[in-house]
């Protein structure tokens, strides 16, 4: 069954899907959803993986399918593209602020402590609990925190 929906509605649905590993931001915020196109009664949604080995990508795909079908949309196709490769440059300032509020230092050349905003920080490990994050420590407030790596 083909249901008449607008592109904006699809984007609204996608914006409600949180990143499974960083629920403070949505998959649209992170730039994972690249395109929504209507063609021949089909809704084509294109997504791109963050890191090649990101285990969350198949989960995100399932969440998109679940969200569409819950809203009675069955005429969709989900495509994956690698080009252009995903980059943190696609993140808006608004999204970076969301990360910061969630205690994750956003991507950028200068890393600030998300708690006290100092630049007096040090790297503990270049690899954190997920591929996209590094582990830091604040030398002022002594809190450990994650940094979303510039990529």
């Amino acid at each position, binding site marked *: 069954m083909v249901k008449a929906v607008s592109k904006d509605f699809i984007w609204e649905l996608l914006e409600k899907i949180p990143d499974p590993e960083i629920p403070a931001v949505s998959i649209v915020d992170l730039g994972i959803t690249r395109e929504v196109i209507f063609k021949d009664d089909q809704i084509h949604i294109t997504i791109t993986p963050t890191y090649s080995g990101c285990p969350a990508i198949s989960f995100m795909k399932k969440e998109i399918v679940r969200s569409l079908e819950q809203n009675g949309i069955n005429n969709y196709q989900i495509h994956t593209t*690698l*080009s252009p490769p995903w980059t943190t440059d696609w993140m808006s300032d608004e999204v970076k602020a969301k990360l910061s509020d969630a205690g994750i230092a956003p991507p950028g050349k200068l890393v600030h402590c998300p708690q006290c905003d100092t630049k007096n920080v040090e790297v503990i*490990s270049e*690899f954190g609990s997920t*591929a996209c994050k590094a582990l830091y420590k604040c030398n002022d407030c002594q809190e450990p925190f994650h940094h979303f790596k510039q990529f």
Partner: protein
Amino acid sequence: MRDTILFKYVLSLGDDALISAQRLAQWAYKAPFLEEDIALSNISLDLFGRANFLLEYAAELKGENTTADDLAFKRDERKFTNLLMCEHPNGNFADTIVCRFFLDAYDKLFFYTLSKSRDKQLASIAAKAIKETTYHYRHSSNWVIRLGDGTEGSHRKVQEAINNLWTFTGEFFKMTQTDIVMMKKKVGVDRKALKIEWDKTINDVCKEATLRIPENSFMTTGGREGIHTEHLGHLLSDMQYLQRAYPDATW
């Protein structure tokens, strides 16, 4: 099959990533400390992801409803064409770091050239790989410097690793028939041409790390022809066990 040579080419690149990933994953929960355990597992995941892209493409080229999983789990040792370095056992931490350092330095150069391939699919996989490999290279080269310029014990171990693994580096730059055909079509990489830059990188890092590079010795080759060291079979027996025991089992 649409293009046998291209299939063989993509498959060999997929095998490099898959076997490297499986090998590195064997460090999970065994690394010297927690941060490094996570680092090695994350690098392994990136390589599994790369293997997946390449093997899916190879499966598509092969046709006949082949899947990436068929290629990973249902081929015998002699059908794998990864570079021998990828299958080398992890050994101690210095052995793994040196193995990754040699491969990361090579991957950086290889994927940079491959990103200009006439084959759009390969070019986009390569562009994705460069970004990750740059990070992996930083990790492995920093460790080579820290260990080499570290204590007497760490220096000795990393030097031994270089001496033992050097024999597998010659294969990085040995062109096969498939390589030559792919290079002429501007799809593949002239691997021989990467050697000068690779040597320079290795020399610079080793100098900083106060390590010696062995005199050019005998080079062990054969991976691209399916002639492997005794280690690959053991790795596959573990990796393929489930699909061999319970064919087509799914989650």
